[in-house]
């Protein structure tokens, strides 16, 4: 591929990724996931007693996600505390992870997932989902599969994989487009499909193909992170 991006990647290259499991000793499961300059940490607690009681489901345990940016994670200090954006992303993350886990053996309980972005450079929800999926596995929660997540974007007419902040804000041509996706690893089941911007309907297939390839790479990184803490 001839065209290079600002940081030297080709259009289909993902950023440098790094995953680490067990970063928070007090949690039942925890993980860090780094995509370029975006760093997410996730902690899992539970299954534990669920309060308030009206949220309890006697048929199965429930998942409860919370996503937030640290106040120092962005250039202009983010006011701490829940915001419209963080509430939406918490919900979207929860929906992305729910199909992967099975809490039928733990009725009336809750599994809490807390995601914190400690450094933000676009793609924070995808980094958060990748970290949370690792942390859930690390906590020994019964799962169908790991969840891999990647954002696809558009620079004018070119489809590009894993945008950073400068690319996400690209205003030229057809305008900024961000297409975050999450899927169950090794399957065709997508658990998160969002679209912010404009894209031609016939290009969506190409996007899914690129996401598939990127997710396969992310899955390998996740798998190695989980295996390397034992094989030492």
């Amino acid at each position, binding site marked *: 591929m001839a065209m290079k991006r600002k940081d030297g990647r080709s259009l289909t290259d993902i950023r440098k990724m790094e995953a680490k499991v067990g970063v928070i000793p007090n949690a*039942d499961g925890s993980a860090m996931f780094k995509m370029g300059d975006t760093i997410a940490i996730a902690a899992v607690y539970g299954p534990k007693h669920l309060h308030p009681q009206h949220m309890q489901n006697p048929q199965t345990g429930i998942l409860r996600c919370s996503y937030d940016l640290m106040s120092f994670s962005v250039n202009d200090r983010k006011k701490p505390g829940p915001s419209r954006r963080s509430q939406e992303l918490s919900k979207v993350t929860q929906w992305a992870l729910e199909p992967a886990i099975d809490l039928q053996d733990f009725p009336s309980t809750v599994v809490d997932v807390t995601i914190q972005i400690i450094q933000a450079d676009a793609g924070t929800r995808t980094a958060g989902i990748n970290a949370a999926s690792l942390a859930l596995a690390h906590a020994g929660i019964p*799962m169908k599969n790991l969840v891999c997540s990647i954002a696809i974007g558009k620079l004018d007419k070119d489809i590009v994989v894993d945008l950073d902040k400068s690319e996400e804000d690209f205003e030229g041509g057809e305008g900024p487009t961000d297409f975050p996706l999450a899927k169950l690893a090794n399957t065709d089941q997508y658990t998160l499909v969002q679209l912010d911007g404009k894209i031609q309907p016939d290009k969506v297939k190409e996007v899914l193909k690129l996401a598939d390839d990127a997710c396969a790479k992310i899955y390998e990184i996740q798998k190695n992170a*989980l295996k390397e803490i034992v094989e030492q």
Partner: protein
Amino acid sequence: MDTNTEAHEAENQEDVQSEEPKKRRVVVPGEVIVSGEDFLPGEGTRREGNDVLASRYGLAEESGRVVKVLAITGAFIPRRNNVVIGRISQITSNGWVVSIDCASSAFIPIDESPRFINKSEMDQFLDVGDAVAAKIWSMGPRGIDLALKSRGLGKLDGGFLFRVIPNRVPRVIGREGSMINLIKEKTGCEITVGQNGWIWIKGKDIESQIKARKAIEMVTDKIYLSGLTDKMEAWFADN
């Protein structure tokens, strides 16, 4: 053996991770462990078509035709007959509510007291905040019932409590209690190990208690080594 954990060790045998070399490998959820109709999916696995897949993260083990995944991380999942160490969190009219670090609440009925207790004097036997060692007697949708009527169970007086990762408890106990007996023998401490990760140590002096704790923390750190009992014996010789 002067101590009181013999009784529990018998039940913990099943959980003990054997130290003889066996075919084991780390698997992540969704990973194919074995293919073929010959295998039966056991704990922590499921069958999908021709394959047996891991449904949780852990060590996959094939014992005969049964394939299972042993947990190596995560929260304590209570099982019947587990010995646990908890704290009294509430006194009710017919027993004590105990917090044992898991999702469902645990309960000691008043009948479990070794002598008759007047309902107005229940705090004389077990008061809020007291530590107890108890065995999980039954588990139902409404919670866990605990029993005290067994050797080595009951209120823990003196000594100190600390916590290790619950999944490493089988290693602390060792094959047929070999590890814990070694530590008891070398330090002369009384030790009760709860399956929920809480460990109680009481010894003659503070040095021996600290030594016992250090030894146990060594064992939980070095979980992936084999032949650990021999290595610990060497460690005790050096210290």
